[in-house]
C-alpha cells in the first residue's frame, strides 16, 4: 500500500481524537488541530500527506472568496462598513510597527497585512459552533471580515508577485477573470444549473486548482487565484451549491492543513527573537481597541462592542499565505510573526469567544432588572 495512506490514517486518527476530547466540553475543534500538530511535531510525515493540506488551504481560500466576495459589499449595512473602517486603521499602524522594527517598505506592508487580517474561516466556524449567529455583534463582525478579505486580497495581488512581472501578470489575470465573469457569466448561469452535482464538484475543483496554478505560473500569488475563483463561482450563481458540495471536502482538507501548520511551526520558529514575540503581542492587542471603537460606531451596546472586538482575534488562512509569501521574499521575521500569531490567536481567540459572555458579565455586571408583569403571557 502507498505510504501516504498510513500517514493519512495517522493524521485523521489524531485529529479525530483531539476533536473528540474537546467535543465533550462543547469547545470548537479548530484550535485543537493546531495544537495536535504542534504536539506531533516532526514525527508527523508531512510530505506524505500532500496534496491534502495544500488543497485544504486552496479550498479554504476558495470558499472565503465564495462567501466574502465583492458582491457582498452591496449587501453590507452601513454599520458594518463603519466598523470596518476603524478596523482598517490596523493597517497603517502595522505598517508603522514594521518600519520601527527595521523592515523596508515591502516588508512593513506584509507585516501590516499579517497583523490586520482576521480569519473569516475560523471566526465563521466559531460563530456557528458556539451558536452566536443570531447575535447582533455577529452581523458587524462578519461585515468587517468581508472588508478585510477584500483589502487583503488586493494587498496580496499588489505584493504577491515576484517583481514587477508577477504583479502585472496577477493584475492582467484578475482583470481577465473578472471580465469573463462579467460578460460570459450570465450566459453560463443557466448552463451550470443543468449540470449534475458530481460534474459541478469536479469542474469546481479543476477550476480552483487550475486558477491557482495559472496565477502561480505568471508569478502571482496562488492564494489570490483560489480566492478569485471563489468570487467568480459566486458570480455564476453557484454559491449555495458549491458551499454544499465542497463543505465536507474542504473541512477535511482544512483540518489537515492546520495540523501541518502546527507540525511545521516549531521548525519555523527556531531562532525566535524577542522582536518577533513583541510584534505578535502588539498584533494581538492592536486590534482590540480599534474593533471596540468600531463596534461602538456600529451602534452596538457596551457588552456587544466588547464581544465584537474579541470575535476578531483569531487569525488564520490569509495570515499564513502572507507569511509564506514573506518567507519566499526574504522576510523571515514576518513569516515567524505570522505563524506564531496564528498559533496563539486561534486557541486564545476561541477561548475569548467561548467565554465572551462571562467576560462581559464580569466587566459590565447586569443591573437588577425590573420584572415585567405579563400575566396574559403566562396564562
Amino acid at each position: 500500500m502507498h505510504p501516504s495512506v498510513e500517514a493519512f490514517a495517522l493524521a485523521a486518527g489524531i485529529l479525530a481524537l483531539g476533536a473528540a476530547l474537546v467535543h465533550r466540553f462543547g469547545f470548537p475543534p479548530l484550535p485543537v488541530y493546531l495544537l495536535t500538530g504542534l504536539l506531533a511535531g516532526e514525527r508527523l510525515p508531512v510530505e506524505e500527506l500532500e496534496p491534502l493540506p495544500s488543497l485544504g488551504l486552496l479550498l479554504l481560500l476558495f470558499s472565503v472568496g465564495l462567501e466574502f466576495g465583492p458582491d457582498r459589499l452591496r449587501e453590507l449595512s452601513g454599520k458594518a462598513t463603519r466598523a470596518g473602517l476603524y478596523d482598517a486603521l490596523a493597517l497603517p499602524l502595522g505598517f508603522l510597527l514594521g518600519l520601527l522594527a527595521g523592515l523596508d517598505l515591502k516588508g512593513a506592508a506584509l507585516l501590516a497585512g499579517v497583523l490586520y487580517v482576521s480569519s473569516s474561516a475560523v471566526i465563521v466556524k466559531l460563530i456557528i459552533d458556539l451558536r452566536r449567529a443570531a447575535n447582533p455583534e455577529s452581523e458587524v463582525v462578519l461585515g468587517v471580515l468581508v472588508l478585510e478579505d477584500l483589502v487583503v486580497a488586493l494587498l496580496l495581488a499588489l505584493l504577491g508577485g515576484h517583481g514587477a512581472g508577477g504583479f502585472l501578470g496577477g493584475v492582467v489575470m484578475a482583470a481577465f477573470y473578472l471580465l469573463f465573469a462579467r460578460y460570459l457569466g450570465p450566459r453560463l448561469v443557466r448552463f451550470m444549473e443543468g449540470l449534475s452535482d458530481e460534474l459541478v464538484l469536479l469542474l469546481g475543483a479543476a477550476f480552483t486548482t487550475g486558477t491557482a496554478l495559472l496565477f502561480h505560473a505568471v508569478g502571482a500569488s496562488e492564494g489570490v487565484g483560489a480566492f478569485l475563483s471563489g468570487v467568480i463561482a459566486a458570480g455564476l450563481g453557484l454559491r449555495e451549491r458549491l458551499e454544499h458540495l465542497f463543505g465536507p471536502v474542504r473541512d477535511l482538507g482544512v483540518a489537515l492543513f492546520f495540523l501541518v501548520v502546527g507540525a511545521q511551526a516549531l521548525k519555523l520558529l527556531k531562532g525566535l527573537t524577542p522582536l518577533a514575540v513583541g510584534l505578535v503581542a502588539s498584533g494581538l492587542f492592536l486590534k482590540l481597541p480599534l474593533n471596540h471603537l468600531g463596534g461602538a460606531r456600529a451602534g452596538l451596546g457596551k457588552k456587544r462592542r466588547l464581544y465584537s472586538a474579541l470575535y476578531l482575534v483569531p487569525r488564520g488562512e490569509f495570515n499564513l499565505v502572507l507569511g509564506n509569501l514573506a518567507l519566499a521574499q526574504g522576510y523571515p521575521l514576518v513569516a515567524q510573526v505570522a505563524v506564531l500569531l496564528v498559533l496563539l490567536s486561534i486557541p486564545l481567540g476561541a477561548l475569548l469567544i467561548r467565554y465572551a459572555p462571562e467576560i462581559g458579565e464580569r466587566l459590565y455586571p447586569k443591573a437588577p432588572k425590573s420584572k415585567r408583569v405579563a400575566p396574559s403571557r403566562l396564562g
Partner: protein
Amino acid sequence: MKVEEVVLPGVGRKFTITVQSGDRLVIVVHHSGKRELQYFEAGEEDEPSATLDLTDEEARELGAILAGVLFHPEAVGDTQSKLGAKVIEWIKVLPGSKLAGRKVGEIPLPPGAHLLAVDRPGAPLIPNPGPEVVLEVGDTLVVAGSREAVEALKRSL
C-alpha cells in the same frame, strides 16, 4: 410588524422581526438548513429571553402551522384532489373550545357542511355520529363539504 433582513456571509441570512407588542424575534437561516431562533422581550436589547434551534424539516412544519395551513394525513392528499371544490377537514376540540361538552346536534353546521365522524383518542371511531353524541376535549371532528361551508364552520368555532 417590521421585518429586517441581512446577509451573514458564511453563515446564512438573518431576519429580525419586530411585532406590534415590541417583542422581537431573530431568526437565522443557516446554509446548512438549520434555523436558530432568539426571542427578545420589548425593550431588551442584549439578552434573549429564549432560544430555539430547529432542523430544516421542523422549521418547515412550524412555518406551515404558523401560516395556518392545516396538516392532513398523507393518504388524504389524493382524496382531496378528487373531491375538487369540496374538502375534508379535521377540526380538533381544544381545551376551552365552546364545542367541548356540547351535543353534536347543537353544532351550528352551515348548509353544505357535513360531520362525517368523530375521532376520540383511545376509543373506536364514531362514524356518522348521532345528534346525542356529546363532544369531549381531544375529539377530532371530520367534516366534509364545500370549501366555503367548511371554512365558515371553522370560523364560527
